[in-house]
């Protein structure tokens, strides 16, 4: 009896990923990331996603600060931040975050402050959802690694 826990955890991982793909939270670029991971780079996906989280949170904080300022007028800066968010979200396969960033960017191009505030809320919401899902995924994978290390005596 080897690794029954592994099978169950793998099934949980597959189910989570399938769900995220169906919801459009992730797209095939995420699969590309997984394919780039192997024995020579065993934590590639985890590493890149964490870089993405760090970068994105800085950008989101900056966006919030900019928009909270009553005398705000620097829509160009908002646009630059959003370009970065769109780009990196696209690079890791975060389809929904990318799309809501594009919508937010359109509002900023129209110098539409209420639209920008709404856009930011939507982006923050989608980003947090993605982050929670990724944490769950990483936890499952960590558990599966541990379970795979267990050997039952024959």
């Amino acid at each position, binding site marked *: 009896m080897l690794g029954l826990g592994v099978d169950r955890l793998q099934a949980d991982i597959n189910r989570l990923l399938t769900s995220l793909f169906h919801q459009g939270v992730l797209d095939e670029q995420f699969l*590309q990331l997984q394919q*780039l991971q192997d*024995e*020579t780079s065993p934590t590639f996906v985890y590493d*890149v996603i964490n870089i993405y989280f760090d970068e994105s949170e800085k950008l989101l904080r900056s966006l919030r600060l900019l928009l909270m300022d009553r005398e705000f007028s620097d829509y160009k800066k908002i646009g630059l931040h959003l370009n970065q968010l769109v*780009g*990196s979200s696209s*690079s*890791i396969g975060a389809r929904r975050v990318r799309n809501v960033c594009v919508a937010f960017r359109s509002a900023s191009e129209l110098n539409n402050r209420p639209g920008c505030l709404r856009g930011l809320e939507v982006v923050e919401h989608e980003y947090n959802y993605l982050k929670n899902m990724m944490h769950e995924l990483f936890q499952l994978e960590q558990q599966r690694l541990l379970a795979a290390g267990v050997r039952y005596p024959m």
Partner: protein
Amino acid sequence: MGMAAAEWKFHVLAVDDSLVDRKLIERLLQKSSCQVTTVDSGYKALEFLGLRQGIESNDPTALSPSPQEVEVNLIITDYCMPGMTAAEWKFHVLAVDDSLVDRKLIERLLQKSSCQVTTVDSGYKALEFLGLRQGIESNDPTALSPSPQEVEVNLIITDYCMPGMTGYDLLKKLKESAAFKSIPVVIMSSENVPARISRCLEEGAEEFFLKPVRLADLNNLKPHMMKTKLKNQKLEEIEKPSNGTAAVEPEIKNPTEMEIKILPLPSELEPKQVHLQEVQVQQEELALSNNKRKTMEDGLSTARPRPRLEGIATAV
């Protein structure tokens, strides 16, 4: 059983210009229960693996299997060979992108394509790295500054949208430079703007990739990179007389002349690896005919060298 007996055998590609050494290594490998293909040059090796585009071959005996039929688990090669030495098979790519996420991604993609990678976060750093330092302000204490002769770059891949110097600006600077205009440049962008694309291509970019970049996109770059390698090779042969092979037969027990690259094999097959050990290339013992040779201790790349081969790295 799931795996047929024939699939247990490792297929080794042995490269050596000496017929005696080819016979020896062939026998050694057969004794280690490997299938062996021997070729007498780096060019033939690349041909065999399928990297045929851009390589001139007037040899009527050129091997040409279809890449899908050939699975090679290991390449064992002599270092000193006329024409292409072993260290020169690897392409060195300079990747430029201001986004850390994208730098990580392109680095990994290039490593998977068996390239050595240097990443920088701006056009300025790229020019610094190449040695084009005149007229460029750099207050960065972490600025890279290798001597131009030590660095051979076979391709530059750069993001278009970067603060300060855009990818287009970098492209222009490179094409204006006598020393670097022959290095192929590829532009990447997350936006599909036809005017932008044609402007870059007109300025001399080889290709324009839409992000996110895929592994398949990079495979199209090998012919471009091969051209610079072959070109550099020809220049070296003109400058210095071509190095001969070692006059003495190398002792099999101390293969210091051999550079061995090991593919990470699935762990259950590890016992087979005990016959082959990673050997450091001893540079001072080799007849250096040029200063562009790269050692295995190349600090620019963190990845272990691996040829690009299908079906090896895929997980079960």
